């Protein structure tokens, strides 16, 4: 019952947050110089043509009316057509979300595959050269910007070695997966460095606790000690960190999708901002915000499932 009230409370708390998001994105977009109508009809159009286009787009109405219309669409999830792409916004979002969500999931997968074994190894050998080398390399990947890593990977593995396509999403599942490998790796490197540091530090901390010695004094096998004593305690903070990074990854998809020319939400949003496609930008940011809030809630719930000391209250 406690859990149910907690989740209900958290969902209710989302309402004011989402309201602020709608305000920020609606008025933020309109503060950027540039007129979508003008962009659509071109510079040389007559004043009448521009005015007609503004009326068609509903931009001639008072701001407050426009905002209330946007709010209504936020409740019904019907955001109308994109100003530039002439297709329903919800449908566009759904199509592009497949790419971005696949990218994020694959990035997480890579991050786990890289960070868990390396972090565990570095933690066990923290006082030896091997551990120090792993930790310094991870520091490099934390400090180098993602787009640079992405460009380097693209240059070497796609342009020189031709192992991976350059900016081709493909049509079949194997093609999709192949085109996601380099971008996922790019996104995973920084996250795995952070998670690896976290795991490595926590391995050192857990090993300093007597419960590992106690487990050994009971004659348990090293495998059992590693799995139920060291890794289980180490993974609790690491999973939380990974879940938090997942929201960063969604936001970071703008950069990565641009570098690798992936047709995802990030790229769509970037184009929409550049062409002042108000309806598309507003809807995308709003839906994005919902995803982030839901994921934050799931993170907290997963934390309480993993750690018996944490209760949802």
């Amino acid at each position, binding site marked *: 019952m406690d859990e149910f009230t907690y989740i209900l409370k958290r969902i209710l708390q989302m309402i004011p947050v989402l309201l602020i998001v709608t305000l920020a994105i609606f008025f933020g977009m309109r503060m950027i110089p540039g007129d979508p109508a003008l962009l659509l009809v071109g510079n040389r159009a007559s004043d009448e043509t521009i005015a007609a286009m503004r009326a068609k787009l509903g931009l001639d109405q008072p701001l407050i009316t426009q905002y209330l219309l946007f709010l209504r669409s936020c409740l019904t999830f019907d955001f109308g057509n994109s100003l530039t792409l002439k297709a329903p916004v919800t449908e566009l979002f759904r199509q592009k979300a497949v790419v971005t969500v696949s990218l994020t999931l694959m990035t997480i997968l890579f991050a786990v595959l890289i960070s868990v074994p390396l972090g565990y190894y570095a933690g066990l050998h923290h*006082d030896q050269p091997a551990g120090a080398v792993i930790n310094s390399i991870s520091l490099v990947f934390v400090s180098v910007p993602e787009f640079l890593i992405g460009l380097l990977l693209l240059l070497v593995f796609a342009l020189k070695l031709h192992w991976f396509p350059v900016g081709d999403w493909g049509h079949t599942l194997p093609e999709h997966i192949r085109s996601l490998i380099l971008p996922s790796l790019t996104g995973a490197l920084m996250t795995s460095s952070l998670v690896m540091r976290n795991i490595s530090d926590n391995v050192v901390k857990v090993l300093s*606790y*007597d*419960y590992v*010695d*106690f*487990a*050994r*004094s*009971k*004659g*348990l*096998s090293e495998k*059992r000690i590693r799995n*139920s*004593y060291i890794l*289980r*305690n180490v993974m*609790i903070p690491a999973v939380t960190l990974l879940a938090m990074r997942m929201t960063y990854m969604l936001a970071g998809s703008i950069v990565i999708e641009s570098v690798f020319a992936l047709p995802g939400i990030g790229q769509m949003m970037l184009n929409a901002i550049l062409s002042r496609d108000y309806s598309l930008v507003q809807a995308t940011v709003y839906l994005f915000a919902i995803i982030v809030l839901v994921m934050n809630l799931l993170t907290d719930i997963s934390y309480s499932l*993993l*750690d*018996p*000391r944490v209760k949802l209250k």
Partner: protein
Amino acid sequence: MSEIERILDVRHLKTDFFLENGPVTAVNDVSFHVNKGETFGLIGESGSGKSVTLRSILRLLRKPGKVVGGQIIYKERDLCRLSEQEMRGIRGREIGMIFQEPMTTLNPVQTIGSQIMESFKKSMTKEEKEKRAVELMQLVGIPSAEERLRSYAHQFSGGMRQRAMIAIALASEPSLLLADEPTTALDVTIQDQIIRLLRKLQRDLGMSMILVTHDLGVASEICDRIAVMYGGRIMEQAPAEEIFTHPKHPYTYDLMRSVPSMERKGSELYSIEGTPPSLDNMPAGCPFAPRCELADDRCREDAPELTSVNGEEEHIARCWHIDRLIEQAKYLKV
């Protein structure tokens, strides 16, 4: 006396810590034995090497510690020579251990029941395991054991955690239990309960025990024989009653004087001046010489050996002035 079976025989144990500036010796030529069914006490201040001695026995030393010399004979096998695999067969099933701080000794993400049951034989069914776990929890005095099986360490009080830890250590029925300051982190009333529990368990189960403590009161309640450690060496060793009534070493004598007693009520409590020597800066002679009231040039230059007191084999002390101490000790009231 030869009928008494020795369960553990530690001979000339030497444990070093390999630090950056070279090795330092934490346990230096320590020899003692534990008879079947008795409780042997290792007492001394922090840093005297008593906990390192315990960890050396089970080979649970943390880096950079390492046993560099001596033998640890358990049931006719030298533990120092066993492979890691063979050692795992000794840990838990033959020699168990309990620790000082129950909060950090229990796995926070595993139920108490599961931590007890993971020591059981794989051939046991789940029902058998749970039944046995409940029995163990009842044995150490945990109320409503069946419900507590599924509790986590953070849901227990300090004393209950210590009881749970004991139940976990007893799960694989060790013949020898190593207890590393098992009462230090507890309230005085709880301390007393845990000591009584340990004494009862030891008698009922016929277990032998090594108790490491800095608390003379605890040691006097439960130990059959006692060794006093200082600076990594045993300074004096004797049957418990003997050592409390007739301490022969100046350090033991000073330790006894530092304990508040009803008879000396009103007078200022004695405290030993100075601090124990650090491991990397051991005095050339007797380690206690810098703090000893009886120390002379010989003590400072030449380390004494353990010698028997009054020709008694059971009572040995490491001091050049044993004779003078015998005189002094007459005035001690414990």
